């Protein structure tokens, strides 16, 4: 018995010693498909004959709760506990002072494309390999929309509702042709507060909690009206007709009861629960929600967010891996990052469950295994955008400030002019 314990302890110590002497340590995004995918590609990399023992990769995972806050403190303290760390588009600028730019493989351009690579750039330099891409889909209940399209007796009511709330008479349309006006008309029609005979309680669900991630979901709307954070000269342009129209449209839907009254406390999970309960006709949500929503409501279809006068857009941001400036094995870390940006690694990552944004040429190789990535890659390259300044040092703070001001307007704690004045002043401080 004692012998067994001693052997067990020795094995444990050997494992811990192995971890402690790992030559390239990667701090990854814990849990979920990202972790599984990173484990899979690491295994492939470590098995390569040209990777020296001292350059083998070890993975380190903590917890998602407060991950970026903890990472920020670690980086600022010059931690050498990891050589490579996770970064996200909106936090690159904040972490960049503690990281080093990297070189990607020659294949990277063809594998990811410019739009996706730009999600990991700051001040014109590449700070990370894009591993996972997040964008937004319009999810809708195909059964409900098809029934509405087929039932011409309802079209007059639909038109009346659109005229009353939106000022123009609209006819039901296929979601693939929707403008934001169509989206709003549909949301109103399927809300019992507007149409008591609606099969769903709400036409849509908008995540309006004071939370930076909710701003990302919202941004596809003002962008389609031409909104941006800054112009090319660096002037803050948030107080624009585009933003005002978008904010007012969302508020109109909230006030009309087209989204649950508790929406001002909703984030990803709450919104998904509302849709999954079968009481919501359509919503704009992260691509990551696809399987959850489809599983709960099998009649769900997904398309890119609706279009506006300036076109169709989807906010994109990525997760990636970059180089810690305090890394103890920079050569080994750089070699791993360079390999990670090759087609071989990107495809292996995708096959293992990750969600890289790949070009049409690259994604073809795995389109049968991962048809969802075809849609992601297609939308990212055709409709993807990053606001001017959204990778800057204070991007995270800008999203935070917008969340506070815009949710205040939606909830009625301040009017639109006040929200616009406040956010312009704050963004001027943060970005200029």
């Amino acid at each position, binding site marked *: 018995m004692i012998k067994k314990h001693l052997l067990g302890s020795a094995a444990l110590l050997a494992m811990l010693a192995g971890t402690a002497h790992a030559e390239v340590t990667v701090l990854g995004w814990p849990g979920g498909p990202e972790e599984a995918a990173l484990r899979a590609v690491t295994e492939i990399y470590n098995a390569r004959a040209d990777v020296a023992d001292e350059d083998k990769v070890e993975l380190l995972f903590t917890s998602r709760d407060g991950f970026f806050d903890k990472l*920020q403190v670690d980086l600022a303290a010059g931690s050498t506990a990891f050589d490579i760390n996770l970064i996200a588009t909106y936090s690159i600028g*904040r972490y960049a002072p503690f990281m080093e730019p990297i070189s990607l493989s020659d294949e990277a351009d063809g594998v990811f494309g410019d739009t996706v690579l730009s999600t990991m750039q700051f001040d014109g330099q590449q700070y990370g390999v894009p591993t996972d891409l997040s964008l937004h889909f319009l999810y809708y209940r195909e059964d409900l929309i098809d029934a509405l399209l087929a039932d011409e007796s309802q079209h007059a009511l639909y038109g009346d509702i659109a005229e009353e709330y939106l000022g123009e008479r609209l006819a039901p349309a296929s979601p693939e042709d929707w403008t934001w006006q169509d989206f709003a008309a549909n949301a109103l029609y399927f809300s019992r507060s507007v149409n008591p005979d609606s099969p769903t309680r709400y036409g849509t669900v908008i995540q309006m909690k004071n939370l930076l991630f909710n701003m990302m979901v919202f941004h596809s709307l003002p962008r389609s009206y031409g909104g941006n954070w800054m112009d090319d000269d660096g002037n803050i342009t948030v107080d624009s007709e585009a933003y005002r129209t978008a904010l007012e449209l969302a508020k109109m839907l909230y006030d009309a009861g087209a989204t649950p009254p508790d929406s001002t406390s909703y984030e990803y999970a709450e919104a998904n629960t509302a849709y999954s309960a079968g009481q919501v006709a359509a919503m704009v949500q992260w691509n990551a929600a696809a399987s959850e929503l489809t599983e709960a409501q099998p009649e769900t279809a997904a398309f890119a967010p609706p279009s506006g006068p300036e076109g169709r857009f989807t906010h994109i941001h990525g997760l990636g891996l970059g180089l810690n400036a305090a890394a103890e094995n920079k050569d080994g870390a750089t070699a791993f990052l360079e390999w990670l940006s090759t087609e071989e690694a990107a495809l292996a990552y995708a096959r293992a469950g990750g969600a890289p944004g790949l070009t049409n040429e690259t994604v073809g190789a795995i389109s049968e295994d991962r048809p969802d990535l075809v849609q992601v890659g297609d939308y990212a390259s055709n409709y993807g955008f990053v606001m001017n300044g959204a990778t800057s040092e204070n991007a*995270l703070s800008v999203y935070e400030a917008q969340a*506070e001001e815009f949710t205040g307007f939606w*909830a009625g704690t301040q009017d639109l002019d006040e929200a616009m004045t406040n956010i312009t002043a704050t963004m001027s401080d943060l970005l200029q």
Partner: protein
Amino acid sequence: MATKERRENAMLASPMVLFLVAILGFPTLLSIIYGFSDTSFQTLRSPEFSGLDNFRRVIADDGFWQAAWFSLRFGVITAVLQCALGLFLAVYLAPLIRRHGWMVAVLIIPMIVAPAMMGLMYRLVLHEFAGPIPHYMYEWFGWSPAFLTYQNVFKTVVMAETLQWTPFAFLLFLAAYQAIPEDMREAARVDGTKPWQLFRYVELPLMMPTVYVALFIRFIDGFRVFDNIYTLVGAGPGGATTSMSIYIYEAFLRQGDIGRALAAAILLFVTAFVLLSLAQRFRRGTT
């Protein structure tokens, strides 16, 4: 002899003093330095002295005053509600608890749950489509209040805090109530005192020191509230549920404005110190 005794006392106390200096003194000193400096995560190791700039920025920030007002209201209302309910329960249930002591264990269950867990639990319980409360209200009445709208969220978080921490006040009051000598009650009854008069003129005055302590503790806890509100609704629409602790947390970690966060923390500490000193004086004067 006295000198030797003093030296021995100093030697015996030194480990604890050193421990406190290391654990409390260093972070306090660092907080003060950062509070008077232009500090961000980039300049943690080289903060530039900026005098009272951070304090000026905090005082000029509407968000700070909104958070201070929220914390003050929240602290006062929850402390009063918890103490009133706790006092009522302690007095009302005391005879029952004397016979069935296990009831205390049941009544203090909410206090055992971590506040952050409590926030997450309410997030689920109050959700229109997943929560049992809205679900059954829709089933039975065809309508349910939206608990977390801007109009209702303050009442909801006050209710959540009150339900969780009333047992704490109840425990204090029960101990104080049970400590009142029985012969005093008997003497009052012999003199013809009615139950209400017994409570008003005999029991309550004897429990008042405990009431003050409970109010202090619950006010402090309410004023510095963070976890249950943050996990339930975050900072709230337009910052409607931003307490002082949430304000400091967001300024520090989310906005990376360390100087402003610590200036706010110092102001909070000074205010709390002054308020507690005044309250202590008031308590001494009334007891």
